[in-house]
């Protein structure tokens, strides 16, 4: 009884040596690179993220001459300098100072951390929730689908900005125990924004799953005895990921805008904690003072970030799924 030994590896080598298929991610990357603006956006975003993470770290080690305290102090978010208020750009304060003499550049970078954290959290939570709910809705159909769809329609119909403002205004007094104030405010804003933001992902994943559900591979999985949850988790959701990722990227720009608008109106994150929105808060009353210096850069960062996310989303749409039209 001797069986000829089969050299599996050699056979595999033979097969793959002819033409090694390109990894999917490489394909995506190549396609994305073709979209010039999306590539630029990707690098811009990377630069902004690096800036807001490492900028404050480095800058807080440096010192500047604080005229009010009469000595050199480290840069920080809240250190005021009442003798150097509303200053234009200088070597010590590259982007000037605000009405309390705080360094605008430092506040801008630390604000970016919070604004970006909020945007990523909201999108992560709402897209995951929407993906799951839409998946269940589309896969099971019937009354489950009806209930979820009516609920989605209800949330879509709600006038979102007034509701956001209302909820944000009445949760202003809430303080989560053992948490810093800025985290309480951020968590509340994240929850509120997520609550109204999941409907797009839900509809998208439902539509995708409705078309996937009856295809042969789903049929085959069912015949092999996979449970419903396994099929949703292993086959359905991975197949809907492409449009969801595109939707999420486009959503990031939107969330940054809404969060900054809330903070601007005074219903989001409140000073002294800085976000890009609330740094613009009292520009109107301060128009005669440092109006321009105070107002320009936070808004410019909001615009750049949001624009970059939108272009990146546009590029990803072409790269991930050329057939896709959102």
């Amino acid at each position, binding site marked *: 009884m001797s069986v000829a030994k089969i050299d599996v590896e050699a056979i595999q080598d033979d097969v793959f040596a002819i033409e090694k298929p390109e990894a999917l991610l490489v394909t995506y990357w190549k396609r994305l690179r073709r979209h010039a603006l999306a590539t630029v956006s990707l690098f811009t975003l990377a630069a902004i993220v690096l800036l807001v993470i490492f900028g404050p770290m480095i800058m807080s080690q440096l010192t500047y001459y604080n005229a009010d305290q009469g000595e050199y102090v480290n840069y920080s978010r809240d250190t005021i300098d009442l003798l150097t208020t509303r200053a234009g750009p200088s070597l010590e304060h590259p982007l000037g100072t605000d009405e309390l003499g705080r360094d605008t550049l430092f506040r801008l970078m630390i604000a970016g951390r919070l604004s970006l954290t909020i945007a990523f959290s909201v999108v992560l939570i709402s897209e995951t929730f929407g993906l799951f709910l839409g998946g269940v809705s589309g896969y099971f159909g019937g009354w489950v689908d009806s209930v979820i769809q009516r609920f989605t329609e209800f949330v879509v119909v709600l*006038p979102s900005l007034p509701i956001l403002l209302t909820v944000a205004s009445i949760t202003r007094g809430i303080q989560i125990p053992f948490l810093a104030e800025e985290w309480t405010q951020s968590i509340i804003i994240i929850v509120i924004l997520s609550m109204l933001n999941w409907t797009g992902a839900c509809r998208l994943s439902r539509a995708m799953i409705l078309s996937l559900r009856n295809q042969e591979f789903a049929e085959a999985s069912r015949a092999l005895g996979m449970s419903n949850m396994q099929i949703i988790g292993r086959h359905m959701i991975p197949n809907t990921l492409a449009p969801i990722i595109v939707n999420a990227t486009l959503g990031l720009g939107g969330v940054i805008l809404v969060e900054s608008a809330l903070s601007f109106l005074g219903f989001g994150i409140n000073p002294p904690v800085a976000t890009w929105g609330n740094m613009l808060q009292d520009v109107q009353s301060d128009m005669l003072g440092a109006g321009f210096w105070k107002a320009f850069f936070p808004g410019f960062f909001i615009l750049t970030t949001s624009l970059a996310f939108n272009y990146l989303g546009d590029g990803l749409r072409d790269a991930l799924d050329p057939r896709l039209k959102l």
Partner: protein
Amino acid sequence: MTNYLIRRALQMVLVVFVSTIVIYTILQIAPGGPLDGLGRQNGDQKSEISDAQRQRMEQNLGLNRPGYLRYLGWAVGEYWIDELGDILGNPGDPETQLFITGTWSDYQSPTCQEAGGTNAGFVVADGLSRPCARGIVLFDFGESWSVAPGRQVIDILADRVPPTVRLLTTVVILSLVVAIPIGIISAVRQYSVLDYIVTTFGFFGISMPVFWFGLMLIILFGQKFRELGLPFFPSGGTNSFPRVARGSLQDFLAIDPGSAGDYAVHLVLPTIMLTLVYLAGWSRFMRASMLEVLRQDYVRTARAKGLRERTVIYRHAARNALIPLITIIVFQIPGIFSGAVLTESVFSYPGMGRLFIDALGRNDWPIVMGFLYINAILVVIATLIGDVLYTIVDPRIRFE
């Protein structure tokens, strides 16, 4: 179709009903209220109020009622509370809720009690204010708590509607007049320079923090122009009555303060700010819709018939491309209405949105609820009109 309309109308009523309950409940359980801070100042005897005063104020505002009665009082009025209490045997917690007569008439406002708990036989000129609240179903939104204490909310809202409507009408008309031709041209000349400009502009429009754009407009056309001695624009309000500022645009053009021209000048900057958003969105949409239509067979047929390109584009393609744009705009109208919140805040423009922000900041819930209620109604009506428009403009769509 009739069946569909009836079903949708019922659904709409339900949506408005559920959303008012949800919002009302959130407002009730929220910390802080109109009496928050009163009588709590430590050490300051003068500003403290006695418990009796507090109870009186709570009764005035209807805050002593249990939650469900508060909602019902807001929705359908309070004139029935006494009688319903009698029928039910006045259940409730006598210690905390019923402190005067021990019946549900304590839940009525003092003016209502004085009138005997009913509006019967009571005639007033304006037809709105009655001793007993009649609820929003009869357009009684109650009295303002803190923005304009004692004034009827509906009167306050009525004052604020015209400025907002003026602003929004200008914005919508201007956006449409510009967006439609731009969309058509950039679709017909796809990949031309103009097309690239339009698409880039569209991306900027959706990514722009509008309030920042508004601030920049004020700084440039209000502040910098004034500094440079150029005729500058007013930075807020609806008019400059009684006197225009020296060197302003009205002064330059010799426009009388308070005249129509004065109002128009005040509209310019807010209109630019709000138009940017809708212009960008709608021209993008029109372009996409037009590109879709230009691929259709009937456009090729029209060309094959030898029609002039002009006729093909305007008579055959553009008219069909307009259909989705119109429906999307109908859906968006309530959104424009609430989107004015930001614009009006930036320009201190005394419209509905500004009122809403003021009311939120000062816990004036009757105004907040009134605004949200009107908004919810607008949304469902717009949704229904949009759905019906679909069937009218495109008879292939049928609702079962």
